[in-house]
């Protein structure tokens, strides 16, 4: 178990440096003029140019600059945003709870609706519920999430008036996050259904289920204690990774519903061409994604005894 975790940890460290290097390279090296890339299409005056050069150590060699960037990322010193000049870490700390809150709703939808429907579909494979759910999940996977978001906003918000069209924390409270949360979770929800269904259907046909039947166990016990315990191993893995993914998906949902979270900040930074903010947010989202992966690996070892002794 320990060896497994250490190996995973080392792989994560490698992935951390790999991904941050790629993000950093794309932002500061792929274009000829990193300052222009940071500032977008606006003309850059000398003062700004000097400030950015100092802040990002742009007069140093690439690897040294990358080192400063990683150090900043690890110590929480993310520099200042181009617009307004506030420390990026401060802005993010302010935005973070909203996104976490939104992601929580998305996650609840995924776990209850997604895994629940997947289990039922897997047990009744080939039935009406199964076929309907499968078709529905394909439709959800097929419709780009921003289209789904805009359409539901139009239908349930603008036309039907059930949900607020745009989110205002003071006015809507938690209720206002339900629709954005559902849309944020929709793709993961559909995938969770399909994954759970496949896994349950496969495990129902496993040899150990036949053994459990031959032992004279009741059907309910076989399904819950034997089949579900095994089927949910890959599902839990998927759900863990999805936590990391949900944060990244927030850029679309938060943009559409005006939810002032990290994704909203990222969208704003793209719109006003605030390069430092874009790099910082993406880097942090990537790190969260990697951490979620690591947690999942450890969880996997806890759930599946075969991994522990690898």
């Amino acid at each position, binding site marked *: 178990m320990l060896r497994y975790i250490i190996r995973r940890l080392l792989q994560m460290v490698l992935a951390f440096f790999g991904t941050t290097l790629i993000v950093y390279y794309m932002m500061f090296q792929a274009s000829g003029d990193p300052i222009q890339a940071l500032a977008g299409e606006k003309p850059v005056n000398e003062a700004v140019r000097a400030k950015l050069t100092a802040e990002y150590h742009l007069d140093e060699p690439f690897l040294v600059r990358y080192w400063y960037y990683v150090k900043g990322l690890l110590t929480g010193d993310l520099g200042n945003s181009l617009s307004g000049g506030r420390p990026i870490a401060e802005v993010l700390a302010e935005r973070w709870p909203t996104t976490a809150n939104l992601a929580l709703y998305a996650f609840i939808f995924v776990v209850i609706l997604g895994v629940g429907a997947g289990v039922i579909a897997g047990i009744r494979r080939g039935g009406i519920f199964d076929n309907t759910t499968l078709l529905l999940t394909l439709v959800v996977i097929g419709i780009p999430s921003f289209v789904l978001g805009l359409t539901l906003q139009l239908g349930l918000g603008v036309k039907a008036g059930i949900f607020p069209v745009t989110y205002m924390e003071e006015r809507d409270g938690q209720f206002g996050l339900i629709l954005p949360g559902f849309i944020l979770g929709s793709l993961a929800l559909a995938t969770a259904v399909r994954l759970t269904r496949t896994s349950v259907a496969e495990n129902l046909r496993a040899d*150990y289920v*036949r053994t459990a039947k031959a*032992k004279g166990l*009741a059907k309910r016990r076989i399904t819950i204690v034997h089949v579900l315990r*095994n089927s949910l191993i890959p599902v839990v893995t998927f759900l863990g990774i999805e936590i990391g993914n949900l944060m990244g998906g927030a850029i679309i949902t938060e943009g559409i519903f005006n939810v002032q979270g990290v994704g909203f900040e990222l969208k704003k930074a793209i719109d006003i061409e605030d390069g430092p903010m874009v790099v910082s947010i993406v880097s942090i989202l990537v790190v969260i994604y990697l951490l979620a992966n690591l947690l999942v690996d450890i969880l996997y070892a806890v*759930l599946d005894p075969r991994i522990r002794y690898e």
Partner: protein
Amino acid sequence: MSNHLLEVDNLHIEFRTRDGVAKVINGVSYHLDPGETLAVLGESGSGKSVTAQAIMGILDMPPGVITNGEIRYEGRNLLTMPEEERRRLRGKEIAMIFQDALSALNPVYSVGFQISETLRRNEGVAKDVAMKRAVELMDLVKIPAAKDRLKNYPHEFSGGMRQRVMIAMSLAQNPKVLIADEPTTALDVTVQAQIMDLLAELRRELDMGLILITHDLGVVADVADRIAVMYAGRIVEHADVHSIYAKPAHPYTQGLLDSIPRLDSKGHELSTIKGLPPNLLRPPSGCAFHPRCPMAQQVCQEKVPPSLNLGGGRTSACLFAEEILHG
């Protein structure tokens, strides 16, 4: 008639698939008494496992459909019994062990959990008592250091030890009949012999009826009392083990015997049965074995051979059984 412990009577089973109907069991009858061992022998696809699954009530239905026949346990027809009542017989009266213990055991539970599970669930035994019983059972099947291994998982055991775990699990509720479906196929030859000896010993000690399903005539010689040879969903020959080894009464049995390596025939080429088992979606006309039979005549393609009683409980489903036996 119904004084046997377990009796399969004229069983017919079909598999209804999208490619058509396969008649996999066509009138199989056999019986088992307490303390005796019946070996059911046949190639894969002969229907030997399907029959066993029908006895256990774990046949996948669909695609399987039992179209005719009875399975009687202590005189009661299992096939017409309510499912709940039948479930209570599984494990407690009739238990079964399977070929590949690694996949037949649940990978995520400890062996102690799995051995004691039926005691706790079906008999309401308290956890510590059930665990103690699990250790006893593991001792019974000769797993060394049983107590320390209670919390281990199936993948931490060797193949032979895993099969012993499965045997221990099947014995938890003291069944009167044990069905062993190819219990040694996945194992090394030396381990095979150990498991066979263990089964024979347990059968004697616990006075169980044992149905041993195998494709390997070699492993049954020392263990079985009677042998039923199956081909294409029929029992083609049924006799006590000595009679069969002395003189088979069906060309298929003869073919199987000829394909076992023997010490006294060193240097001789081993013969095999030519061809493949028939496709049961489109079985051959007449005797199902005729395309592969060295003795086949014109009549074999036309007439399904009935099961001939050769006396002494011996039967053969060959039109020329008398000639083979006495010729």
